[in-house]
């Protein structure tokens, strides 16, 4: 389809008829500023083609001019294969539609619109006006402002048009609706059996579990069957055994043997008892013989002992006599030695008494000497103490103490300082005259001495020179009066201290002070001397008096000593010492003699003690021997009295012959033992008894076992295990068969589905090839190396970049999305146009988001497409779209004859 001209009147802002003329075959551009009315032109175009002239729908009403209420009129001339058509429609007011066909026919009203729909392939609009669904393919090819972004909206009718176009090019590769339903149907059948991951579901899923349960049941039943079978075998075996044991043949044979053994045992046991009795008798006889032998032997031993005891008693007596003599000798020797020791002890005592007295005398002598020395010391101490006393008294009499002299010296020094200052300030008056001249001169009434004709004047003085009159000298001294007053005060202070110290002047004070110090030193010397003579000791304090008291104490002790010693006169110390030495020597000698005597005594005393002990022992032994002998003799006498020796001998002989007789009897009985012994018979009896008992018990056990086995068989009765096993086998087989059927079904469905899906996929690829074939050159121009993917609903799903990775369409930028969408629209239009179907592309304000590079590529693409299909571009970017190179259309006044509104 080629649009040729469009004119409109009383439509929106256009009250006067205007139009577009000379629309070319290829690329056309309507460029102009905003509000120029580009979109209004598009509205008019859509209205005249797709809306019913009689429509009262809102979009139609909106076409009316705001200021007048005239009916909008649109006229469109377009060219199809068979020539030029002209459609004119007026809306709202006196609406009409008129289609002028190339064959000269003119159709009016609905007929015109029906014809138009047939020509262009769109659906009749509803009451609310034309919608994308009714526009069909035109909705894809004619893009309104703001709708060019994103994938083209393909309503069902548009898809249908495209599918028709595709099928007319590649044939019915998709197999129609039935074809599309088949894979779904197979898939749903497969889905009912397995999950998408191929895992069984529903009944199919439960089958393995059922199979396992059945197998388990079967195993359990088999086990029970086996058990039952075993129980039956056991029972049969047990009953056979019991039958054998219950026959009684063995028991009878064993019982006969047992009875025989018991009889034989009784006989053997009786013989053994007799042998036993004879043996016991023999033992008795043997014991009697032993007793008789012992009696004889006892009597013989007793007489032997008596003889022995007699000899022993004799020997003891002899020894006693001998030891008693020795003891006597020893005792006398000891007594003589003891007397010598007594003498030695007395002489030692005497010598010790003499030594003690001599020592006391010497102590008294020494004490006396000490007393005399102490008395001399005491006297000297007393003298020194007296001197100290006197010197202290003399010092106390002088008042110039160290403190007083210090005060006086300070005061004197102060006075001297002031006097010195006055002297320094004083005016010196020197008389240099011959002595004669001096005579007669008086100073303040006092005559001037010629020896010292120099004066120091502080105060005004009057120098009377006889005959001549007086000279008054008044020295000018600074602070003279103050100094004089200080001098006076100092002097007064000194005088006061001197007075307090009872000193005439400073020199006197110094002298008195020196005297006082001399006294004090003297007192100190005396004190030290006294301390030397009467020092403090442990026994008395320091000082003469304490010493005197001590001396007194000593004197009294000494007097008592003298009385106790009975001495009038004390010997001389040397004498006393010599005496002591002498007596001490005597005492030493006496002690030595005593030690010697005592040593001599020790041996004999010990010997005596031993002798005495032995004597005691010997005495006791002798007595014991005597006693024993006596007892033995009595014993013997008694025994002999009761049974004389001869009788004992006779009894012994009788016992011996009895014992021999009995032994012979026992041997005779033992010789009677023949054949089995008692233990052998006992063992046989025990064995037979055990065998009988064991069989009895075994029968009993078997009976119990049989009862138990029977009870188990009884318990299993009615279970019908074999029948149950067969039933389970049947169920198991059926279950396995079911499994196989399911497996087979899944295999078949899977193969069928995958084959169908693969075929469908391949068919779709083929089906879409006409679109892709046409898009591809455009895409190469826009995005070199890229490929586009489109689904079977002709929706763009994404692009495959040169590198091979696929990007979803929705993830692309707005600009790219719009550019690709335009390419697809171009491809669609191209395909339709090539098949002779009406197709024109209209883009209103599209590609505004494209960058410079892309826009120029898009221009190239549009130019390429415009060779095959008419393209109308509405844009407000006049300058930019100059580069497109299409025919530029502009609004021109239109002929008003057909456009005059009613």
């Amino acid at each position, binding site marked *: 389809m080629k649009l040729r001209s469009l004119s409109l009147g009383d439509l929106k802002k256009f009250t006067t008829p205007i139009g577009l003329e000379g629309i070319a075959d290829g690329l056309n551009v309507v460029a102009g500023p905003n509000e120029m009315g580009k979109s209004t032109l598009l509205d008019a175009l859509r209205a005249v083609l797709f809306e019913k002239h009689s429509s009262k729908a809102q979009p139609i009403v909106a076409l009316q001019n705001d200021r007048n209420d005239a009916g909008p009129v649109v006229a469109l001339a377009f060219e199809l294969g068979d020539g030029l058509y002209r459609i004119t429609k007026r809306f709202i007011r006196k609406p009409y539609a008129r289609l002028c066909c190339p064959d000269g026919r003119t159709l009016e009203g609905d007929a015109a619109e029906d014809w138009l729909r047939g020509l262009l392939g769109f659906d009749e609009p509803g009451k609310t006006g034309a919608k994308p669904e009714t526009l069909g393919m035109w909705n894809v090819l004619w893009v309104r402002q703001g709708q060019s972004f994103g994938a083209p909206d393909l309503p069902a009718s548009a898809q249908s048009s495209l599918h028709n176009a595709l099928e007319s090019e590649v*044939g*019915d*590769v*998709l*197999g*129609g609706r*039935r*074809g599309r*339903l*088949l894979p779904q*149907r*197979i898939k749903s059948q497969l889905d009912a059996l397995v999950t998408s991951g191929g895992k069984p579901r529903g009944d199919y899923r439960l089958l393995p579990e059922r199979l396992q349960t059945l197998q388990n049941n079967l195993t359990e039943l088999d086990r029970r*069957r086996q058990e*039952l079978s075993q129980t*039956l075998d056991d*029972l*049969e075996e047990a*009953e056979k055994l019991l039958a054998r044991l219950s026959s009684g043949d063995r028991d009878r044979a064993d019982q006969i043997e047992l009875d025989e053994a018991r009889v034989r045992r009784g006989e053997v046991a009786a013989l053994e008892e007799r042998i036993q009795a004879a043996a016991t008798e023999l033992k008795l006889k043997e014991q009697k013989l032993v007793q008789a032998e012992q009696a004889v032997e006892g009597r013989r031993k007793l007489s032997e002992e008596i003889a022995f005891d007699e000899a022993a008693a004799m020997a003891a007596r002899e020894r006693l006599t001998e030891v008693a003599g020795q003891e006597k000798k020893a005792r006398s020797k000891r007594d003589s030695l003891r007397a010598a020791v007594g003498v030695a002890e007395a002489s030692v005592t005497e010598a010790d008494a003499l030594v003690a007295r001599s020592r006391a005398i010497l102590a008294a002598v020494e004490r006396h000497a000490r007393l005399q020395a102490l008395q001399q010391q005491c006297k000297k101490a007393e003298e020194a103490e007296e001197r100290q006393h006197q010197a202290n008294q003399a010092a106390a009499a002088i008042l110039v103490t160290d403190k007083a002299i210090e005060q006086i010296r300070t005061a004197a020094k102060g006075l001297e300082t002031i006097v010195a200052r006055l002297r320094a300030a004083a005016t010196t008056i020197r008389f240099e005259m011959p002595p004669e001249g001096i005579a007669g001169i008086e100073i303040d009434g006092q005559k001037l001495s010629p020896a010292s004709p120099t004066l120091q004047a502080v105060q005004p003085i009057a120098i009377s020179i006889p005959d001549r009159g007086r000279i008054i000298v008044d020295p000018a001294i600074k602070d003279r009066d103050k100094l004089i007053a200080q001098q006076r005060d100092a002097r007064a202070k000194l005088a006061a201290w001197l007075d307090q110290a009872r000193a005439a002047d400073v020199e006197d004070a110094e002298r008195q002070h020196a005297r006082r110090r001399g006294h004090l030193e003297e007192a100190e010397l005396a004190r030290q001397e006294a301390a030397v003579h009467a020092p403090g000791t442990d026994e008395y304090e320091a000082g003469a008096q304490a010493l005197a008291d001590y001396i007194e104490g000593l004197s009294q002790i000494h007097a008592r000593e003298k009385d106790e010693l009975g001495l009038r006169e004390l010997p001389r110390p040397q004498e006393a010492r010599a005496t002591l030495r002498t007596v001490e020597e005597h005492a030493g000698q006496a002690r030595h003699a005593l030690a010697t005597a005592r040593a001599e005594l020790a041996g004999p005393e010990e010997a005596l003690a031993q002798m005495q002990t032995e004597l005691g022992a010997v005495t006791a032994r002798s007595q014991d021997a005597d006693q024993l002998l006596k007892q033995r003799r009595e014993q013997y006498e008694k025994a002999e009295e009761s049974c004389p020796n001869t009788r004992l001998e006779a009894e012994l002989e009788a016992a011996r012959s009895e014992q021999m007789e009995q032994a012979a009897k026992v041997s005779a009985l033992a010789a009677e033992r023949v054949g089995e012994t008692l233990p052998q018979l006992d063992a046989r009896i025990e064995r037979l008894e055990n065998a009988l008992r064991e069989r009895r018990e075994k029968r009993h056990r078997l009976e119990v076992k049989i009862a138990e*086995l*029977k009870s188990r*068989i009884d318990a*299993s*009765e*009615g*279970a*019908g*295990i*074999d*029948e*149950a*096993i*067969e*039933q389970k*086998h*049947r169920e198991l*087989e*059926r279950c396995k068969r079911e499994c196989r059927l399911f497996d*087979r079904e899944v*295999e*078949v*469905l899977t*193969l*069928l589905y995958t*084959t*169908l899906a*693969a*075929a*469908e996929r*391949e*068919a*779709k690829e083929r089906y879409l090839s006409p679109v892709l074939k046409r898009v591809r050159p455009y895409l190469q121009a826009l995005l070199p190396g890229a490929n586009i993917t489109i689904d079977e609903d002709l929706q763009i799903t994404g692009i495959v970049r040169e590198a091979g990775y696929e990007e979803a369409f929705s993830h692309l930028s707005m600009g790219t999305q719009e550019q690709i969408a335009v390419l697809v629209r171009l491809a669609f239009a191209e395909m339709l146009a090539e098949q002779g179907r009406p197709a024109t592309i209209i883009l209103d304000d599209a590609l505004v988001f494209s960058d410079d590079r892309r826009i120029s590529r898009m221009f190239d693409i549009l130019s390429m497409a415009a060779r095959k299909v008419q393209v109308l571009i509405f844009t407000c970017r006049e300058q930019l779209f100059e580069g497109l190179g299409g025919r530029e259309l502009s609004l021109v006044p239109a002929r008003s004859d057909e456009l005059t509104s009613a």
Partner: protein
Amino acid sequence: MTIRLIHTSDWQIGKVFRFVDDATMGLLQEARLVAITRLGELARRHGAAHVLVAGDVYDMEDLAPRSLNQPLERMRSFPAVQWHLLPGNHDPYRVHGLWDRLRHRGIPVNVHIHFTPEPVVIAEESFVLLPAPLLRRHTLGDPTAYMDEVGLADGHARIGLAHGTVSGFGSDSRSVANYIAPNRPERAGLTYLALGDWHGQKKITDRCWYSGTPETDGFDVIGGGQALLIEIEAPRAPPSVTPLLTGQYSWLTFAAHINSRADIGDLAARLRALPGTLDRILVQLRIEGALSLGDRQYFVQEINEGVGAALRFMRVDDQGLFSRPTQEDLDQIDRGGFVRAAAEALKRQSEEGAADDREIAALALQRLYVEHMKLQAARQ
């Protein structure tokens, strides 16, 4: 006096049929019980006072009480008939086993269990019964051997009753379990040896027969569903042996070559024309051939679903029936489009590759055909 006996065996009461559905199994089991009643009636009708059951009364040793009692109650209801039961390999005699339990519990007075190999004199009928019960499932050693040693009773017919097989495999028949010498009647002077174990009726010699099971229980059983009427005129003379029909259900096996829709029709007609009531017939079909997808579908509808519903049970072995998709089949699916492409691919797969893969592909193609047809039907 003519001795009349009914010879039967292999009742296999309690038998479980693994391959049939539950309802059919119930019917088949019930039929085995009904056969006992039939035997009682036949005995009455032919004036046979004794029914010899040559082993395998029960299919197994440990049955539920109901299964055990059902045959006894049937036998009890024929008080004039003496039933002689012999333990077989399926129900051997064991101490305290099945038979002892029955005896302890009490069996009808007209039922006799022969669990010891000892002659039993049936004085009023002038015959001696020589039973050879099995004491275990498999016995090595001929259980009838003892019959040779049993002394002859004057004027009495000697009738052996045994369970086992008369045909040995290979040269050493002793290695065969429950082997019975086929010449036992001659060796032991038997008038007749009533055998059980083979479910199909079979004459071994004039004096030795297998009665077969009274109700067929397998497709491989030939001559089942029968019993034998034995009539003995004299101990030495060979007995008169007459087969009697006892079974309700026929077990039939068919093999057919199917290559066209017409073949399918013929087969259906043949099956529908089987004699007797169709729901008393069990059929095992072995089909070979090749069919188009459409015909294969037709086969399922006509044979599996159609004739199958008429019969008591039908087992179809179609391992040898192959799909041979035709151009028409494929065009039926679609003339173009991807479904057609898929069909072509499956067809290719069904013609090449491993056998199992080929089979799956063929089934998938068949499925595609069916599903496509269903969709088409839904649209119309």
